[in-house]
Each structure stands twice: as structure tokens, then as C-alpha cells.
């Protein structure tokens, strides 16, 4: 458990205040990564009603590809861009694998197929790269900022994580609210028939969604990898947290995924910080159950019909 939990582990600050600041800022950083993965889940769910559990597998796989590029070239940035590119490609492949044979089946068949793809990717990764956890290098020195004599857990890399995640969310927000592509994608998700009758190629928009989700998921993977280790199963917990956040956010709301992702990260960071890091999965489960009892349709949802 300890290994896969690394990214929710926090060491002690020097006093109560700095401890709280550490947990809080750590929670925001973590929350943004959870938000990215939740966003990727929602991107696919809102247009196809399929929860793509393979996304963390895709992210893991492309992070390994990034790691290999780093081994060869030593460039963190090149590794990032190649990981994102292969994330897009993998999104395309997974959509074809999961949806095409499932065209006539119901969505639950497709959801189970995404689990199959996840397991397949994990098996393939352990054949190619082995099952032992490896470290993903950081592009910046791993030293926390010192303010007034107190050294915090917040490092330059944390800044990069936060800025990169915020930028990506902003870019996606811009695409969805201000561009023709975004309008076509939203219309295809909300009402495929009216979208088609307006001349939009809905199936192409679905593919764009799977590709975008693949890129966003890969980005989350590369961002989080230096904070933990990378192994075929190392993102399993991220899946649990991101799924929790996506459900709390309403599953079809991009804003909801981001908000609930940050919220989930904060709660996880604070609670595990003051108790024990091994509690993280339990807390996520608790959040999910409370949400499903209190507000099953999610906090930011558009639809009111989802039942559990």
C-alpha cells in the first residue's frame, strides 16, 4: 500500500501552521492532477455515456514512453511532448478497440471492455518495462521554498504542476466555450440528433473527445509521476480518486470535474495528513458514498435523470 500511496504522503512541517499550509498546498496540487484525470473521464462520458477506466492505463503507458524517451535523450520536455502525442494516439486506438465492436451492444458492455483494455495495457507494460517501480526524474531541484525560516513542502515542481494544470484547464475551457469545435462537441454530447441535423459529424466529435481525453490523461500521468514512482499499477489509486471526483462533479460537467477534483485532493491531503496516508482509498470511498446518498446527480450536473 505504501508504495502506491506515495503521492498522498506528506512529511511533518515544523509547526501547526506550516503543517496546515503544506497539506493545503499539497492538496491543491494533487487536486489539480485528480481534476485533470476526472476531466478526461468526463470528456468521454458526456458524449458516449462510457466511463473509460482504461484512461489511467493509457496514462501509465504513455508515462512509461516518456520515461524511455528521457532515458535515451535526457530531455524532460521532449519526453513530455512525446508522451502527450502518444496519449492522443492511444486515445484513438482505445476508442476503436472499445467502441467499434460494441456499436450494437449497450454501454455497460463498452465499460467492461475499458476494464479489459486497462488490464491489457498493464500486462503489456510489465512485459515491456518490467513490474518494478521506477523513478520518474524531475526537471527542477526537489527543494521546498523557505519562507521566514520555515521550509515548506511546496517546491518549484509543485509550481510547475499547478501552473501547467491550470493552463490546460484554461485552454480546454477556451476551446469548449469559445470555438466552433467546442460548440460542435458540446452539441454532439447534449443532443446528437440535433447536432447531426445541423450538419455536425457527431462520430468525428466523439473521436476528438477520446483523443483529447487521452492527451489530458497523459498530461496528468507525466505530472504526477515524479511525485510517486511509475509501475504498471501505480495509477490505480488515481483512477479511484478521479472517478470519485468525476461522480461528485456530476459526470457530465467539465466545471464540476475540475471543482470536485480540487476538492477531493484537498480533503484527501488534509485528512491523510492529520491521520495516516493509508486512509486515502477509504476517504475516497466515503466521499463517493456520501455524495451518492446526499446528491446522487452530482453537484454541477446538467441532467437530473441519473439514478443510482
Amino acid at each position, binding site marked *: 500500500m505504501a508504495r502506491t500511496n506515495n503521492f498522498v504522503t506528506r512529511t511533518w512541517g515544523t509547526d501547526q501552521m506550516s503543517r496546515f499550509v503544506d497539506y493545503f498546498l499539497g492538496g491543491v496540487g494533487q487536486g489539480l492532477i485528480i481534476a485533470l484525470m476526472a476531466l478526461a473521464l468526463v470528456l468521454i462520458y458526456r458524449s458516449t455515456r462510457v466511463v473509460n477506466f482504461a484512461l489511467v492505463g493509457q496514462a501509465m503507458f504513455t508515462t512509461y514512453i516518456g520515461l524511455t524517451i528521457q532515458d535515451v535523450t535526457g530531455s524532460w520536455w521532449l519526453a513530455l511532448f512525446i508522451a502527450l502525442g502518444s496519449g492522443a494516439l492511444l486515445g484513438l486506438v482505445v476508442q476503436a478497440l472499445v467502441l467499434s465492436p460494441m456499436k450494437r451492444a449497450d454501454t455497460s458492455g463498452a465499460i467492461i471492455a475499458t476494464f479489459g483494455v486497462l488490464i491489457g495495457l498493464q500486462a503489456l507494460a510489465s512485459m515491456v518495462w518490467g513490474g518494478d517501480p521506477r523513478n520518474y526524474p524531475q526537471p527542477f531541484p526537489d527543494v521546498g521554498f523557505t519562507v521566514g525560516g520555515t521550509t515548506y513542502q511546496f517546491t518549484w515542481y509543485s509550481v510547475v504542476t499547478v501552473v501547467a494544470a491550470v493552463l490546460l484547464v484554461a485552454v480546454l475551457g477556451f476551446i469548449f466555450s469559445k470555438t466552433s469545435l467546442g*460548440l460542435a462537441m*458540446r452539441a454532439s454530447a447534449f*443532443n446528437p440528433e440535433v447536432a447531426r*441535423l*445541423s*450538419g455536425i459529424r457527431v462520430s468525428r466529435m466523439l473521436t476528438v473527445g477520446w483523443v483529447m481525453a487521452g492527451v489530458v490523461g497523459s498530461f496528468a500521468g507525466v505530472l504526477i509521476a515524479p511525485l510517486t514512482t511509475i509501475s504498471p499499477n501505480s495509477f490505480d489509486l488515481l483512477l479511484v480518486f478521479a472517478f470519485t471526483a468525476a461522480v461528485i462533479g456530476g459526470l457530465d460537467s467539465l466545471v464540476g470535474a475540475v471543482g470536485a477534483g480540487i476538492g477531493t485532493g484537498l480533503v484527501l491531503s488534509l485528512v491523510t495528513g492529520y491521520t495516516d496516508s493509508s486512509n486515502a482509498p477509504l476517504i475516497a470511498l466515503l466521499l463517493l458514498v456520501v455524495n451518492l446518498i446526499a446528491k446522487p446527480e452530482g453537484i454541477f450536473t446538467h441532467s437530473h435523470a441519473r439514478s443510482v
Partner: protein
Amino acid sequence: MNIPVAPSLHVNHLSVKFGAVQALSSVTLTAPPGEVTAVIGANGAGKSTMMRTIAGLVRPELGDVKYGEIQLTGKSPEEIVQSGISLVPEGRSTIAELSVEENLLLGALRRSSDRRQLLLDEVYALFPILGERNHQRADTLSGGERQQLAIGRALMGDPRVLLLDEPSLGLAPLIVQQILELVRDLALTRRLAVLLVEQNAVTALRIANTAVVLHLGKVVMTGPAAEIGADEQLRHAYLGY
């Protein structure tokens, strides 16, 4: 005399089957430009099925649909829209979660932004209420406003043929009359071929040039709208008034 004649929409021997149910049997009709062709008939006569088949949402078993010489049968709904045939489906089909303006822009996404703006201005001139509410979500509009929005979205595609499926459904009589009169004016001024499906035969016949009576998936009568409206026997037999 040398004005080029816009083509008509031709539905030729169209048959549609849903499993064992024959929804349409060999339906033939023509919708010429500049005119409103009304398709009337009781519930279940196959009117909506015919419209959805023309728009490419339903595959016919036999027969085809042509716009002039262009074969539409076999094309996808997206391609049919690009050919200039726009359907306003039954039930005020607007996208609730999008704003009024976004709903309209959907109809013209493939066009240049200048052309899109021009089309948008035209629709706002036609339906001023949509211009006033352009940033409101579509589901905050009244039924009549939403029907205007649905028609406006279709017009954003700058169509040559407008297919209207039950625009009067659930609307107050005064609003129905306004909308249908506007449709008739559109047909005249823009040389649109309008195919209007209506259960509300009285109002439809008042504005239509030609009427086609559909009964259990078959065409039982085609003729000038005024004549069909005056045929008491036919009204009793098929239209129920």
C-alpha cells in the same frame, strides 16, 4: 423567362419498414420551390417517418428522395444538410443547455465567420425575440420562442428545402398562425421549397399551396390545398373534422 428554375424535392415510391410494421408504402410527392406543400393525416399516418427518412435519419426499404437531380437517399444526415435540405424535427428540437445564439450558430458552423454573422443577423431580423434573448439558455424560452429558435437554426444552414415536422405541436393557436404565416412568406420571398407536416390540418391547409393526405403510410389524395380543405367526405374520412 430566363430565371433559372430552382429544383423541387421529389419523394419517389418511398417505403419504410420497422421490423414487421410497414410505416410508409410507396409514398410519392413533390415539393416545388416557392410553395408550401402540406402533408396532413392522423396520428400514426407515417408523417414523421417520412420527414426523418428524407433527412437521412431513417433508411428506406425501397424508393428514394431526390433534390432536382441530386440523389439524397444513402447520404448521411450531415451530408443532406450540406445539400441544402434542413429538417426542423418534431418537438421544438433545440439544445436546452446551449444559449440561443449557440443553438443558431450550430446550423452554420461550416461557414466562414462573416457569412455566419450575416445569417445570424438575418435570423434575428426575422425573429427579433431571439436577438433580445441571444445569451439566454434555450430552455428558458417559451414554447413559441423555442419553435422560432428551431426554425432559425435550420435557416442558419441557408437551406433550399425546409422540412417542418409539426411546428404547431403544443402551441397556442395565435402563435401557430404567426409561425405558419412566416413560413409561407419565407417560401415566397426566398423561393424555399417547404414541406410542412401537420396534424392541425385546418391551419396547415390555410397557408399551403398543395396538400398531400397520408393515411396509414399511404398517400390517399394529392391536390390544391383549398380543394382538399373543401372536400367534406375526405375530411370526415381521414382528418376527423
